[in-house]
């Protein structure tokens, strides 16, 4: 069956905030003359990529709304607003009330003072259970719950920006970010929707998330090094605070609205395996075979390699075999779990839109002088899940 061009999934809006800055212009400029933005002090020995300062009032005008959210939600709502601005949809109440939304989210944000007081006092109590209840009842802010619930990023986007056609939140680290994009594209292809806001956010500047990955033995303890160079001298993840949303829209809708797209998601696949050696590679080969044809002379790879040792090494071998220029988005942005795949897609779409790949982020990455027309995006979860997409000029 010939492809229905009207149902192509185009990226017509991008909102991206990270250590590199707020918005796509700042991000692109930073990538063109890259130097890593790392906070090595606050959480030493764990380096993290801190979020650039945001002028929250620009996207979340009500202070009351800002107060009702925690950092991961504020950066997500902010990025969603940038994406809607970029797509020319901000404030279009009619379209936004019919717009679909798929958010990839973790959750959490704790009150570290409350936690520390409980951890310090628990063992000293005659009735520790009742004491724990008393402390939680007395010390937890009631609204903190709403900052912890996974679906309250979407809820806040509905409140602040008015996106209310549908609202689904997917959970599950990197894979859920890729599945959010895949299902958005599938809905558009099947005429189950015309416009989907897709993305997520991640606050890496949190002791509890560092704690989680440190339990897994997955964090780099040494000073920052780029993703590929890191593999030789202390592999591991360097987490980064990222908010990224994309407006994915049918070609028919974009044409009706007269907007220019950043790029076309010409193919996207996701899968999983148990991560026995070679299984992720096998999945990626199947995905590659399913992608539309690409011109090796005009294609680069935006890799979502997390820095976690085993999958990063395995992906590096596969990418070397492909022989295309590669950029590891986690070197620039840090690894950001749920929004990592949407953010890699954003970098791919920006590069395709500019018709040129940004310079290597480290010596292991090859320069690309020729024009760029297509970008393969990989997204292997640090634990599970493998995704691939092909972005091309719209």
């Amino acid at each position, binding site marked *: 069956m010939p492809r229905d061009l009207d149902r192509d999934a185009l990226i017509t809006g991008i909102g991206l905030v990270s250590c590199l800055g707020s918005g796509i212009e700042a991000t692109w400029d930073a990538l063109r003359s890259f130097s890593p933005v790392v906070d090595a002090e606050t959480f030493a020995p764990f380096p993290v990529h801190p979020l650039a300062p945001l002028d929250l009032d620009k996207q979340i005008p009500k202070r009351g709304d800002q107060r*009702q959210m925690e950092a991961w939600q504020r950066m997500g709502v902010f990025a969603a607003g940038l994406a809607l601005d970029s797509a020319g949809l901000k404030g279009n109440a009619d379209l936004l009330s019919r717009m679909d939304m798929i958010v990839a*989210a*973790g*959750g*959490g944000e704790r009150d*570290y003072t409350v936690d*520390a007081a409980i*951890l*310090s006092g*628990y063992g000293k109590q005659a009735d520790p*259970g009742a004491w*724990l*209840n*008393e402390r939680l*009842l007395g010390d*937890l802010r009631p609204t*903190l*719950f*709403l900052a*912890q*619930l*996974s*679906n*309250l990023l*979407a*809820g806040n986007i*509905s*409140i602040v920006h008015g996106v*209310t*056609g*549908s*609202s*689904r*939140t*997917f*959970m*599950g*680290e990197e*894979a*859920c970010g*890729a*599945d959010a994009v895949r*299902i958005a594209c*599938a*809905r558009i292809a099947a005429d*189950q929707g015309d416009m989907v806001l897709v993305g997520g956010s991640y606050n890496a500047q949190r*002791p*509890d998330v560092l*704690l*989680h*990955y*440190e*339990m897994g*033995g997955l964090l780099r303890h040494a000073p920052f090094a780029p993703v590929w160079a890191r593999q030789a001298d202390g592999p591991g993840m360097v987490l980064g605070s990222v908010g990224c949303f994309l407006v994915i829209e049918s070609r028919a809708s974009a044409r009706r609205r007269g907007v220019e797209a950043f790029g076309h998601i010409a193919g996207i696949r996701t*899968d*999983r395996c*148990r991560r026995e050696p070679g299984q992720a590679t096998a999945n990626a080969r199947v995905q590659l075979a399913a992608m539309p044809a690409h011109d090796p002379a005009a294609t680069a790879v935006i890799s979502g390699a997390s820095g976690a040792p085993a999958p990063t090494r395995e992906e590096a071998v596969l990418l070397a075999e492909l022989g295309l220029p590669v950029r590891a988005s986690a070197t620039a942005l840090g690894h950001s779990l749920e929004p990592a795949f949407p953010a890699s897609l954003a970098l791919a779409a920006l590069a395709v839109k500019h018709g040129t790949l940004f310079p290597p982020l480290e010596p292991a990455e090859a320069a690309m002088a020729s024009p760029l027309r297509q970008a393969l995006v990989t997204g292997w*979860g640090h*634990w*599970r899940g493998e995704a691939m997409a092909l972005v091309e000029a719209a």
Partner: protein
Amino acid sequence: MDTDHLGRPIVVITGMGVITSLGQGQAANWKALTAGQSGIRRITRFPVGNMRTTIAGTVDFIPVEDPSAPALSQRLAELVIDEALAESGIGRPGAFPGPLFMALPPVEMEWPQRFALAAASGANDQVTYDDLLRAAGSGKFEGYYTRFLFASVGEALADRFGTQGSPIATSTACASGGTSIQLGVEAIRRGEADAALVVGTDASVNAESLIRFSLLSALSTRNDPPSAASRPFSKDREGFVMAEGAGALVLESLAAARARGAKVLAVVEGCGEQADGFHRTRSSPDGKPIIACMRNALADAGLAPEDVGYINAHGTGTPENDKMEWVGVSTVFGERAGSIPMSSNKSMIGHSLTAAGAVEAIFTALTLREGLMPPTINYEIPDPTLPVDCVPNVARPVTGLKHAISNSFGFGGQNVCLVLGTA
């Protein structure tokens, strides 16, 4: 005809499995539910000293190693999927021929794990996250890392049941179960799969989660007797009762079900949703999103309000929810609203949160099949502002019931409505 009014594949249910505080399995649950029994009990899982609410619909009869919300949620999911697959007869053991959609509670490390890390850190006076981080670096806590990944339950289920592709875990708060069914229906309608495995599970009754709802004044504090605490639509309702449970459904295209000679239990005729941008925990006062959600579901099913003979209410028993649900129902169904039976399973099983939409869709399907409507128990003092036929206190037979809806509303402005029909 294998296609619906819009030419899409008709999606049917061929297998179901359920666990609630009332028991394990469809038969045990249906018997208790239609007898008007309550599964709400005193909490014994953790100390409740100083708590305002000391009751819940916990599932205490399923053993699990290293208990935690994700561990028990996963175990409940495994058991209800086993039941659904056995009824459906689809696929081979360990090889389900389609994707997995799950409604899961958000995952977070819990206090027993934090205390274990604190103890291992050796810090003896002031304990901070720096101490926990030091203990974490010992490598002895890798099991916690895996258990409290958001993907851990889905990956375990995908491995065990051999579902196809990346498992999708959704959270739309108390509408999650409905959303997971909707995702499965949409995948089959798109032609991506002939079958989908859907499960909603929630076993997150622990001290902190109970307290979080308590701090929002959402919970009933009517602790004595526990069975009387959940009072949907009553004038003296004052909050919901937290509960646990799980429901699994095998969805198939009608064509695929027929081709393999499967018994069709019910038809998922339509799904509707509409998000609400009014407030984080409260519905828009005009009820517009709830109204639009139900109308979207009916339009998706190609039905008119007069076709609906039973409403499985969200019916949490909070003052706000029941009022807003009535605003929605009375607008959509007009003069018929007060005469359409509309009962709340939550009066007996409590509010199983993430799982509720899946569990209650199963009970809606059973209502259609059995021609028997479960009651709303504890209905003693009618609320004059809610003139609803809530099937008070005693189950009621019904003949000729063809179509029913099941509502789910959640924090964050989440609204989902499913339309189910007889096979």
